[in-house]
């Protein structure tokens, strides 16, 4: 497939936004159980949610560049019964709105205790909104992943690993961002977030490596023989029917060299996993803003490369019909 930067930015930006929200809420849950010191609603959760909100809005903004008719985008909520894309279109604004409400509730201190669980555990409004939003965050990851995983003949994508990768990679970048944010906010949670970022980045490495290994030994179900229905082991295309390009030659071929495909894979493996893991490990012991900035920038840049590779690696069966001019 030909990677579209609008979709690359959409999926990486909202992934980081979702991850950052999950990180903030994880911190709040730990505080609610008195495991971590309680953070300032105003500067920590309020501003943190604003950053997540900005990432999500930037992603949503990028997605419009993918559309031929962005002014009709509202129509795409219609077919949620059958289309994962339609489901994403519904869940994404819902998640953005709830993230905003979560931030507002914290920032303006509109956070009454609603009820007490078991007589000892007070549940306030933000905890409840956060729980709902956590569900939305995971739903959004599933929708985004399933858009790709549900196309069964794009065999590189048609695997549960696709959804797992979207969840883990997005959450990893969000937790790295949370570590950076808590260093900026001087909250004392840098170690907590950096620790979780290391764990999730490691998990993401395992599942992404698993999908790379899986895709290395894919046996394609379609061949020229099934594409034109002639049972013969030796079929060659002599003409695709036209000389210059068409939508079919532009949309489904990435056009990059073998060398580039190979090297971008190592580039993203180093940028998404190796460098952030090293920098975060150092960051666990000594809080250094530069290191954390570098960790997040490296991981996010790496994710752009990872997503580019994800799209480029998918081999569409229609390419069988467009082998020769």
């Amino acid at each position, binding site marked *: *497939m030909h990677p579209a930067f609008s979709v690359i930015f959409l999926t990486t930006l909202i992934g980081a936004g979702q991850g950052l929200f999950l990180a903030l809420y994880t911190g709040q849950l730990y505080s609610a159980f008195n495991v971590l010191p309680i953070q300032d609603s105003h500067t920590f959760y309020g501003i943190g949610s604003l950053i997540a909100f900005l990432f999500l809005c930037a992603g949503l903004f990028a997605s419009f560049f*993918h*559309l*031929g*008719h*962005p002014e*009709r*985008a509202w*129509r*795409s*909520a*219609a*077919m949620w019964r*059958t*289309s*994962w*894309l*339609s489901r994403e*279109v519904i869940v994404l604004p819902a998640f953005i709105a709830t993230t905003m409400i979560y931030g507002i509730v914290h920032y303006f201190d509109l956070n009454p205790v609603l009820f007490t669980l078991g007589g000892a555990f007070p549940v306030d409004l933000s905890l409840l909104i956060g729980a709902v939003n956590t569900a939305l965050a995971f739903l959004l990851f599933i929708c985004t992943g399933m*858009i790709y995983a*549900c*196309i*069964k*003949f*794009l065999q590189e994508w048609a695997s549960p690993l696709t959804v797992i990768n979207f969840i883990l990679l997005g959450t990893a970048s969000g937790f790295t961002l949370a570590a950076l944010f808590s260093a900026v906010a001087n909250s004392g949670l840098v170690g907590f977030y950096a620790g979780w970022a290391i764990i999730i980045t490691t998990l993401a490495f395992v599942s992404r490596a698993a999908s790379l290994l899986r895709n290395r030994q894919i046996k394609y*179900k*379609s061949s*020229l023989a*099934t*594409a*034109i*229905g*002639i049972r*013969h082991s*030796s*079929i*060659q*295309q*002599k*003409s*695709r*029917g*036209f*000389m*210059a*390009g*068409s*939508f*079919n030659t532009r*949309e*489904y071929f990435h056009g990059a060299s073998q060398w580039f495909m190979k090297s971008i894979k190592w580039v993203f493996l180093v940028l998404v996993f190796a460098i952030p893991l090293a920098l975060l490990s150092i960051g666990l012991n000594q809080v250094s803003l530069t290191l954390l900035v570098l960790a997040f920038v490296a991981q996010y840049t790496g994710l752009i490369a990872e997503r580019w590779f994800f799209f480029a690696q998918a081999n*569409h*069966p*229609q*390419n069988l*019909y*467009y082998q020769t001019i």
Partner: protein
Amino acid sequence: MKQLALVIDLNVCVGCHACVTSCKEWNTSGSAGFMSDYNPYEKDPTGTFFNRVQTFEVGEFPNTQTVHFPKSCLHCEDPPCVPVCPTGASYKRPEDGIVLVDYDKCIGCKYCSWACPYGARELDESQKVMKKCTLCVDRIYDEALPESERKPACVLACPTSARLFGDVNDPESSVSVNIRENGGYQLMPEWGTKPANHYLPRRQTSITIHKDELTRVDNPLKKERQLPMPGKDEQTLDDITSW
């Protein structure tokens, strides 16, 4: 349930591209809007087409067969492009099984084209909506046309009648009979899309002759050859002489 479709006879197709040009001509003049072209007379011309003829070579030299292969939307009975459409712009008509795009609803997200294993859909660069073969839905029901012309433009244009049009779910239709009796098949059956369009395979007519069949056992000349040569003044009528 009715399912209109094309049956393409690869045994007859000569690869002349008449179906390609007639399709483009009819549909670019249609009420649904033109099929845009960019740089048509310059370097790298590109444009929207619903139908293409491709050429394949099967086998190794010298035992090769050239196969001309027309490809357009197959109007699948279980079209994977329809359920993925987020707006409902892509739909399959229940009354005749034609898969169509509502150009007023399409947002141009290209997701349906990703979900088509055959590459049958193209984004029109000018209108920014997804386009595909309509089976000339604006022709086949047009009562202003004489009945014999209520067929897709490609079918009418084919000089060798390699393209047949009809209801593949009606067992008595000519397309069904052809599929049944001439080994009609579907493309990429492995994805379960159940394409409505079928292809008829290359067929070679051959007979087996054994050596003893090369000379006729009951050759009448054999007997007649034994007759004596008639004299020069005798009658030479065929029925009484050997020549």
